[in-house]
């Protein structure tokens, strides 16, 4: 039987763990609210961008002069996977789910005989992928000193990706991130950003063709596509940030609850041991008294 002193120490240590996880949960909740607000605020821009681009892409898309960001390089031999994860751990399966999805994609592509390159955003994904895919790394974007995600961060990643595309380093780029569904559910998502893909709008859509474009449809599209890439990356970053906090919140909630259970169990054990000690002492006293 563990002695009383040990049990008491364990209880104290689990209690302080519970305090920490509780605090982390509350911090995550506050950050989650901010992240959600940021994602909400970014939505009008992204939606408008998407609407205008898909309208344009429809009218320009099939011509010969379509920009390479839309039409692609005509090949799909080299794939760039942009894997976005968190800079910090202790957020449940958040990082692992993204990495798992990316790994599966690497396997699929490799089975098809494609070359895969990986650009990591966030330290945790890099650490996890390093084990078997370190040879495919082409770069890393560090966001650990970014306090508040801004469009500038997304623009930086976008220019990194676009620079590589212009240099002919890859044909297809896909981003991996977690789409925020709710605090308990984040969906690992893969979105192809280069060449640009749009949900085909209803055939009877009237926008696109009605518009005048200045300077010209092609020029506007050419100007918009790089911005579109940056916007998609920005949206992904914000979704990811919200998901990370959501995942951390529920992970810490679980941890807090587990710690509570553990304290309860330990306390019962402690009380039983104490009782046993007292009973023993009583027996000793009584049997001592009887012996007289």
């Amino acid at each position, binding site marked *: 039987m563990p002695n009383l002193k040990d049990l008491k120490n364990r209880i104290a240590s689990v209690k302080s763990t519970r305090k920490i996880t509780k605090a982390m949960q509350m911090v995550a909740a506050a950050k989650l609210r901010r992240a959600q607000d940021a994602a909400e605020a*970014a939505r009008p*821009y992204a939606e*408008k*961008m998407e609407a205008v681009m898909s309208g344009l892409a429809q009218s320009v898309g099939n011509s010969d002069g379509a920009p390479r960001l839309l039409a692609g390089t005509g090949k799909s031999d080299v794939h760039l996977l942009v894997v976005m994860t968190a800079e910090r751990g202790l957020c449940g399966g958040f990082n692992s789910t993204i990495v798992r999805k990316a790994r599966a994609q690497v396997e699929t592509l490799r089975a098809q005989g494609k070359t895969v390159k990986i650009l990591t955003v966030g330290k945790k994904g890099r650490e996890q992928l390093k084990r078997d895919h370190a040879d495919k790394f082409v770069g890393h974007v560090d966001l650990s000193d970014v306090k508040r995600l801004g469009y500038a961060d997304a623009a930086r990643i976008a220019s990194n990706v676009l620079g590589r595309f212009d240099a002919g380093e890859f044909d297809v780029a896909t981003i991996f991130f977690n789409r925020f569904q709710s605090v308990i559910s984040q969906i690992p998502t893969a979105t192809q950003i280069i060449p640009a893909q749009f949900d085909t709008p209803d055939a009877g859509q009237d926008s696109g063709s009605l518009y005048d474009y*200045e*300077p010209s449809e092609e020029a506007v599209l050419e100007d918009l596509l790089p911005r579109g890439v*940056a916007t998609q990356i920005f949206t992904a970053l914000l979704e990811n940030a919200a998901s990370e906090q959501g995942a951390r919140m529920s992970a810490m909630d679980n941890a807090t609850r587990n710690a509570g259970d553990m304290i309860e169990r330990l306390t019962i054990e402690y009380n039983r041991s104490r009782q046993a000690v007292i009973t023993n002492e009583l027996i000793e006293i009584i049997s001592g008294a009887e012996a007289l």
Partner: protein
Amino acid sequence: MATKMQFDLVSPERRLASVMVEAVQIPGADGDMTAMADHAPLITTLRPGIVRLDGVEGAAEKAYFVTGGFADVAGPKVTLLAEQAMPVSEVTAEIMDGLIAEARAAQDKARNATDGGTGVDTAGKLVADLEAARASTLG
């Protein structure tokens, strides 16, 4: 009184303005233009410059500095998507000088590039536009 229309200015990070206006002056890539209600549908890219609002309801800002982006003019509604935008009253010399320095660096880079320098003109125009905007915002 002229008919009013909805004007929205959105940046990637937030919605900066959403007001009813009579007319909007837009610094289009091909030249300035003014859009009023029921303007023909138009999409134009922007050059760095100042967006002026006429006949704004309430005490909203009347002029914004934008570094680029595009405008979607559609009948009863004008939407401006700007990568960076701020009320003119908040523009300071430091911000403008920073942007101009950035544009200059890009210009130098384009000049030194080996691809025949197609980017030089674009970069030069950006510098010129920014300088003009600096002059008109800071007076």
